[in-house]
Structures are given as C-alpha cells and as structure tokens.
C-alpha cells in the first residue's frame, strides 16, 4: 500500500523518474542519447496521433457536408469550410438552438437520462461500497460460516459476472416489479455493475489510513460511526471521488443493459447512438455530431479529472 500511494502521488506531482543520464563528457554517447530522445518523442507523437485522430475525425466530420466527406477533406478552413449541417440536424446549431426541435428534445432527454442514471448509480455504489469496504478492512465479521475473506470474495467475484447472464432474469424480474424502462431499475443494475470496483478501490484507500487515528477518536468519546463519519470520511474523500468518477465513466458508456431493459422512457445516450447507426449509417454529419455530443462530457472529464481516473484505476494494483 505504501508503494501504491507513492506511485500515485508520484504520478500526480510529475516526479522525475530515475534518469538514465550518460556521462555528458563523451561525445559519442551524447549523439546516441539524442537519437534515443528523437525515437522516444517520435513514438510518443505517433501514439498521440493514433489515440486522438479518431476523435479529431469525428469532431471535424460533424462540420462537413457530403462533398467534404467523400473527398476525404481533413483540415477545417484549409481543406473545407465548416458547416453547421450536422449540428443543425440534431437541433444544436446556432441557428436552430432556439427553435423547437424534436431531435434535440430526444437527444436532451437521453442525455439527461444518462446523466441521472450514471450519477445516481455511482452515488449509491460509492455509499454502499465505502461502508462495506470500511467494515471489511477494520472489523472481523462472522456471519454463520462467512468471514471477512469470504465476504470480500463474494463482492469482488461479481466482477466476473457477464451482463448477459443477468440481462434476461432482470428483464423478467423487472417486468414483475414494474421496474422495466424506469430510471431506478437501471440505477440498480448499474450499481451492481460498479459496486465491486468501488469496494476494490475503497478497500485500498482505507487500508492506507492508520488505525491510530480512529483509536484516538474512540478514546475522545466518538462512537464507531462517529469516528468513521468525522475522521475517516474526510481523509478518504479523494479515493471516493476517484471511485465515483470511474463509476460514472463506466455507467455512462454502458450499452448492453440499457439496450435490453429500456424502451422509450429511460433510454440512454449509447442506445440512441447505436440505433442511429443501424437506420441511417450514411448520414455522416449528423452521426458525427451525435457522437461528438455523446463523448464530449467524458472527454472533458478525462482532461480535467484524469488524476482521479488514474488513481481509481491503479488502486490496489501496485502492492
């Protein structure tokens, strides 16, 4: 655990890694070093291109008209003149934004659904998961023959459960419970999906907190829950934020359950994107605009909250 915190703070503060510095006096090794730097930066830029080009392509395509697509124009203002056509078709261009647009209403509804469900499920998962992780780290349980190890295994083993196994039973169950095509229904499924990940991250987080802090709080007259809420919770907040953001990313992108368990009311954005590809795959500009709008929130999250995502992903992996 000590190592892992080191790694994370190291990543966050851009600490200098171990430098492979050659002795600067030797001329030959110096030119070799330069060749090495050139190779490293070439590879870095190459992969940056691979990682970002599809996004660039999608964003620019949303401003193209048919002829720009077929002729393979790539650079706006040089190759082609940007056009609002794609955005107009989903009602989000400057000249249509104040008019009524059924497509935009549809899009906004899906967008809101995605937001409600991913945030709701992540909140629920972080609350349930943090409590469970704290209990499992600090106390010894014994429910019949179940001990901490078994309970932890029970939670984490949910991770291997493929969505296809639960999809149909959920469909049947939700039909009986009248939860089909409702927000709460999908929130419950998504909570189940991310709960093991949250528990995994939070277990790692709580292990890093010295027990002495809570013991001091208990001596001062706090109850177990008081110590947790007043002492442990504030310290472990960064871990919770990391777990929360990672959960939001996973829920936002989820397609399988959303496609099977929702129909018209609680549809999410990925379902809308997927349904468009089926019916009008050639309508490039509007598909590009829709994809851009669908990935934009997470792209922004990725740029500004990358630190937390990395923290969430690496929790517990480095011992």
């Amino acid at each position, binding site marked *: 655990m000590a190592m892992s915190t080191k790694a994370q703070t190291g990543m966050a503060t851009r600490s200098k890694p171990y430098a492979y510095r050659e002795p600067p006096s030797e001329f030959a090794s110096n030119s070799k070093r330069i060749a090495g730097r050139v190779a490293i930066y070439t590879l870095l830029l190459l992969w940056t291109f691979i*990682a*970002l080009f*599809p996004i660039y392509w999608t964003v620019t395509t949303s401003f193209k008209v048919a002829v720009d697509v077929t002729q393979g124009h790539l650079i706006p203002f040089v190759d082609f003149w940007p056009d609002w056509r794609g955005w107009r078709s989903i009602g989000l261009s400057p000249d249509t934004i104040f008019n009524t647009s059924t497509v935009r209403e549809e899009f906004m509804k899906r967008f809101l659904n995605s937001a409600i469900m991913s945030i709701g499920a992540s909140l629920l998962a972080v609350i349930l998961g943090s409590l469970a992780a704290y209990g499992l780290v600090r106390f010894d349980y014994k429910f019949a023959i179940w001990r901490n190890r078994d*309970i932890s295994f029970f939670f984490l083993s949910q991770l*291997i459960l493929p969505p296809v196994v639960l999809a*149909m039973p959920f469909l049947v169950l939700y039909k009986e*419970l009248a939860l089909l095509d409702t927000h709460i229904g999908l929130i419950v499924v998504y909570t189940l999906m991310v709960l093991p990940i949250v528990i995994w991250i939070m277990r790692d987080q709580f292990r890093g907190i010295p027990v002495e802090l809570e013991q001091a709080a208990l001596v001062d007259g706090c109850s177990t829950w008081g110590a947790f809420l007043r002492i442990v919770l504030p310290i472990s907040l960064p871990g919770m934020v990391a777990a929360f953001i990672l959960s939001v990313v996973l829920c936002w992108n989820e*397609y399988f359950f959303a496609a099977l368990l929702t129909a018209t009311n609680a549809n999410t954005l990925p379902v809308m994107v*997927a349904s468009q590809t089926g019916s009008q795959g050639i309508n490039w500009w509007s598909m590009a605009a829709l994809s851009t709008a669908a990935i934009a929130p997470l792209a922004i999250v990725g740029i500004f909250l990358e630190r937390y*995502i990395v923290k969430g992903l690496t929790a517990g992996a480095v011992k």
Partner: protein
Amino acid sequence: MQTSTTAAPHDTGAAYDIPEGRRAAGRWLIILATITLAAFALLQSLYAAGQTTYGFANWRPVLYAYLAWGVALGVGQVMIRGEGGKRALFVLPAILFTVAVVIFPTVAGLYIAFTDWNLASFEGRSFNGLANFWALMNDAYFWNALGNMVYYVLAVLVQYAIAFGLAMLLNAEIRARKFFRVAFLMPFMLSPVAVGWMVGKSLMEYRFGPAATLARLLGWENPAFFASPWIARFSIMAMDAWVWIPFVMILLLAGLQALPKEILEAAKVDGASPWRSFWQIIFPLMLPVSITAIIIRVIFQLKLADIVITVTSGGPGGATDTVSSFIFREYRDRSNVGYGTMVAEFYFILIAIFIALLLWGSSRWMKRVTG
C-alpha cells in the same frame, strides 16, 4: 439511528451490558419483520398462481417489504448485539443489496434456462428440461463464438505488450508528460458504441474513410476491413485494443513508478545495457503488476460485446462474433429468451472455471518464480 444511543463501551464488540429486554425486543423485531416479508411473498405468489383473488397488481410491494425487512434487520442487530451490530451495519446494506440483485436473478435465470420460452410465440413459457442444453451442444454458432473468444482473449497479450511499451515511454524522462498521459488515456473514456461508429463505421469506411485511404496509399488495393473473416477479426481487435490499451498502460505505469530506484541505478552502474536491464530487472519486478493487469483485462475481455454488436453484428459469417453478442442477438432479434439464458448460464460457468484456473495457476506460478 444508531450513533445517538451510545452508552456502551466501544473497545469491544461484546454485548454484556445490553439489557435483556432490549435484546428480546430486537429479536422480536427481526422475527416480526421476517414474518411480514414471508407473508407478503406468500400472498403475492398465491395471487400470481391464481390461488387467491386478493393480491397486488405487481410484485413491487414485496420489494418494499424486503427493504423494510432490511432496515428491521439492521435495527434488530444493533438492539441485540450493541457495538457488534453497529459494526455489522457497515457491511449489511451492501450484502443485502448484492444478494437481492444477484441471487434472485440467478435463481430465476436457472429456471428460465430450462424453459422453452420465445417472446415472439403465443404459447408463453413451458418447462422443457434439458432440451435447451442439447440444442446448445449442437449449436455451431455458439461454438464458433466461443472459439472467437479464445482469439480475443489471446489478443489481450498483444495489448499488454503495446501497453508496456507505452508505459515505458511515459516513464522515460520526457517533457509534457501530463499532456501525453491525458492523450493516451482518452480512448478509454469513450463509449464503445460511439467508438463503433467513429472508428468502425466511419474511419474504416470502405469508400472514403481515412483508414481506407491510407491503406490504399500503402498499396492495399481493396481495403475492406470487415469483409473477410480474419481481417474483420483483426479490425475488431484493433478497435478493442484502441479502447483498452490505456487501461493496461495506466496500471503498468503505476507499477513502473513504484519500482525501487536503487536497483535500477545499480544496474546502470554495473554497465548493463538497457535491453538487458529491461529483461533481467524491470520485467521480473513488474510481474505481479503485469499479472494483475492481464487478469483484470481478461475478465473484461470475456464480456466484450458492444463494439461487435454495433459494427459487425458478428459477421461476416460469425467470424467476429463473441458469446455476449451472440446471446444479445438471440434476445433482441429472435426473442429466444429460454435458449439465450441457457447459453448465458453455460458461458458463465465456463468463465467461472476459467477465471478460477487462471487465478490459481498464476498464483502458483508467481510463487515459483518469486519464491
């Protein structure tokens, strides 16, 4: 509901100073709640079976009864066991939640798997024993999809190799590390469905997608990425790799940054070449992280579906089909609920065995290598 009633000592979980009356009250609370829940469930199942005329329109009241039962169980625990009960309250909500949403559906799923149930047919469901299972054994499409999963899982190793290279690059002494890390992570943030369109349907479009144009420039006359089986499979793998390499890379980067610097510097002083110091020092030290990363990645890879569903629907001729996308089509297009569930349950058992073997094998192997 629990923090306010704290007169009991906190240092032990013992319940020696809880009055007998409070304990009895707690016990009664749990018993009453259990009886209520059982009554609700019994009443509703009788109603559903047509035995009584009195009941609810749907099962939702039973769900509320379960929630109330959960609360009563928690309160009862605190009343009976005091401090120990308060500790149980930490883990109880998550357990009750997971049990409710995993155990019930799994049991229901097992029942569905043995029925002949097609939503499109008028007959409704009927029990048909092992017929689904035998159909599964003879279903060439399923075995084909399962065979594809082997390739997809093996592709994880390639992803791992590329991710390791990228992690090494990011760990080198470079400028603008933050920029490169954000850029490299970006594909992971995108929804696979959107990626399916962005890359699969537009970038790799046959006539004027940039990838096709590039392929033509490089001398590939006929860059159809999804026409022949192996090329289609590689295209799907490439898209999947594009999404998931950042994940593996981030794990490996964290591992690299946690390596003990002294050893690396000692190797440098001893004059070991970078190649040698990689294979003899860095790679062995990275083994635990590598195995964690690969296992997590394999677990996720076994669920691969979204990209396949949106881009190829399993084609051409089932060459890119995954088990999940196969079952998805069974549900969505053929409404074949009973059979699809049987496939899903069978696949789940295979996965569970495979992962268990993988965990067992890797931990044994790690012990032999490190110890």
